[in-house]
């Protein structure tokens, strides 16, 4: 039972980790990308539609990523080239994506609300050869779909890219001091554009995971604001990839827990569903309390928070 919770936590956290990695890159590039949900829903839809028509998971994943990146490119174009406020662009793109996928669901797949079919292939579950037999670890980490492993492997890759590569350095400088980057001859807009595209890439994975691995169907608004949770994780961790992933997992674990608590406690389900959100707020308060106490003694007054 306990281990099953963790196994489920790994599953629940996966789309959050994907989306968080995507949002993290834009965060590091100085853009607050609130369109993660929009990217994800488009990817989820494209994945299901492609899988349904071609029967190929690979094509479906590819198409999902492309669709998500296309939307990201649109968003980037409006934000970077046409200087739309990232917040409006993000809101608009998200609701546009919700509406468009709902329209296309009817137009392309002939269904309202939900689409599911036997013809949609699903990502198979992988049993990790050696790990599977280790008592506790095996139960938690084995028996997920390939995308779950991909998500967690992305975390060190993103960290490595951010902190060990030229591109990562430039991206972080663009986020922190765009004038410095521009003066050093870096094409700030282009770097931001790339970050946004990659954000689309990761959300493409997240969407495909949601609709072809976690479940195998498409439903309107099926991202259920997971992108916003991912965003909160990023803020919480101030853009550190490992910490961000950990917060996403914390949220996933709290969710897994809240799924299993009702039978135990007999409490109203609404109160149990509060747990992940409340845990996140409490964690924020705790961190804020600790840093503020230290800062107020030796820092000049600042209101904008870093």
């Amino acid at each position: 039972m306990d281990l099953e919770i963790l196994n489920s936590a790994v599953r629940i956290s996966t789309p959050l980790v994907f989306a968080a990695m995507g949002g993290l890159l834009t965060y590091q590039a100085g853009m607050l990308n609130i369109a993660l949900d929009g990217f994800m829903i488009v990817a989820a839809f494209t994945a299901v539609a492609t899988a349904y028509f071609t029967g190929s998971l690979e094509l479906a994943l590819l198409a999902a990523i492309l669709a998500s990146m296309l939307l990201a490119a649109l968003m980037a174009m409006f934000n970077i080239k046409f200087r739309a406020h990232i917040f409006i662009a993000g809101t608009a793109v998200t609701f546009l994506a919700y509406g468009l996928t709902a329209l296309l669901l009817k137009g392309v797949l002939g269904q309202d609300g939900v689409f599911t079919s036997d013809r949609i292939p699903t990502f198979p579950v992988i049993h990790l050869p050696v790990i599977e037999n280790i008592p506790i670890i095996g139960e938690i980490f084995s028996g997920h779909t390939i995308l779950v492993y991909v998500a967690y492997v992305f975390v060190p890759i993103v960290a490595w890219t951010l902190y060990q590569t030229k591109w990562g350095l430039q991206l972080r400088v663009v986020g922190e001091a765009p004038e410095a980057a521009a003066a050093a001859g870096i094409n700030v807009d282009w770097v931001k554009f790339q970050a946004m595209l990659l954000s689309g890439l990761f959300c493409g994975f997240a969407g495909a995971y949601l609709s072809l691995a976690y479940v195998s169907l498409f439903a309107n608004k099926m991202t259920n604001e997971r992108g916003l949770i991912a965003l909160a994780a990023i803020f919480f961790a101030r853009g550190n990839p490992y910490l961000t992933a950990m917060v996403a997992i914390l949220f996933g674990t709290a969710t897994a827990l809240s799924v299993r608590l009702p039978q135990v406690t007999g409490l109203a389900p609404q109160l149990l569903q509060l747990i992940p959100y409340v845990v996140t707020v409490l964690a924020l308060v705790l961190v804020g309390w600790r840093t503020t106490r230290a800062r107020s003694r030796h820092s000049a007054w600042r209101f904008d928070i870093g």
Partner: protein
Amino acid sequence: MSFETTGSGPGMAVLNFCRPAVQPIVAVLIATIVGGLLVLALGENPIEVYGLLISGSLVGVPNLLVTLQMMTPLLFTGLAVAISFRAGLWNIGAEGQMLVGALFAGVVGYAFPMPWFLHLPLAILAGFVGGGLWSAIPALLRVYLGVNELVVCLMLNPIALLLTGFFATHVFKAPGPTNKLPDIAPSAALPTFSVYSQVNAGIFIALACCIIFAIINVRTVRGFEWKIMGLSPRFAYYGGINVPRRAIWVMILSGGIAGLAGAEQVLGQYGAFYDNFSPGYGFDGIAVAMLANFNPIGVIVAAFLFGALNGGSGVLQMMTGLSKYLVQVLQFITVLVLAAQFSWDWLILRLFPEPPPKSPDAVEPVNATPTEA
């Protein structure tokens, strides 16, 4: 940050003067064209679709009343978002604040019957207080613990939804199959005017709020202070503005106004607090505020646009069988295009290409002779 202005020449002054109006119009035009292409791609006649959207929202008293009904909550939430964003506080929690305000108004509305001249104001005030209390959480966390209000608001929205849902389904649940509080007493109801729509006296409160805040923004010290702290809080603080206190109050005011949206819904439109009643007025409010460029009068215009699109949506569905999602798509194409800065500059650059160089000896230096104040 770029301080460059584009375009120049004699026509510039005139165009700059009407810029606030022209920019949205150009954007709506572009959005209409893009949306029209989309409609065409769906195999419908864009002229018919837009015709129905317009006639369904503006032509005839019933349609107009529906539009007004739909714009009312957006007036409140748009204004709420606008005043907080203008002061540099990212209150994206209007949705949650509206829900809590609605719950407060709903409870006061049914649980404490009294004469209407007391009851109605009290119930409205309860909505304000509910929203204000809910927004005080991110405000206090921001000011005293440096926690980003954006994240807190993101978390508080679902928390508000779940908590108000808990109250509606467990604590104050009205008997019957629906998840709602008991109906409010007639003494707490905002009067409605017609069977065609639930537009009610709340719209006057909303418009009054917009006008009051428009005046506050440009005519009062407080409004000036909010603007400065929105652009540069450190400078504002240095200059003697009590930024932490102002920040808390702006957030509370903003939340309170979002709470009024809830009160208007409960007291005017539903007659009781219903679980999960909002189709996302709080989020639409962000778009409305952005379109309005945080200007309270602009909020009225933007809310009207949104209300009209939503109102026209019903007629469009009724007449053509097209989906409500089409309207949503058209709506947010408009928002996206409106948000872009290109429409105006693009137009200007085409109308007024850069003028030839001015004669080189234009200005003579003034002598540097500052004297004591």
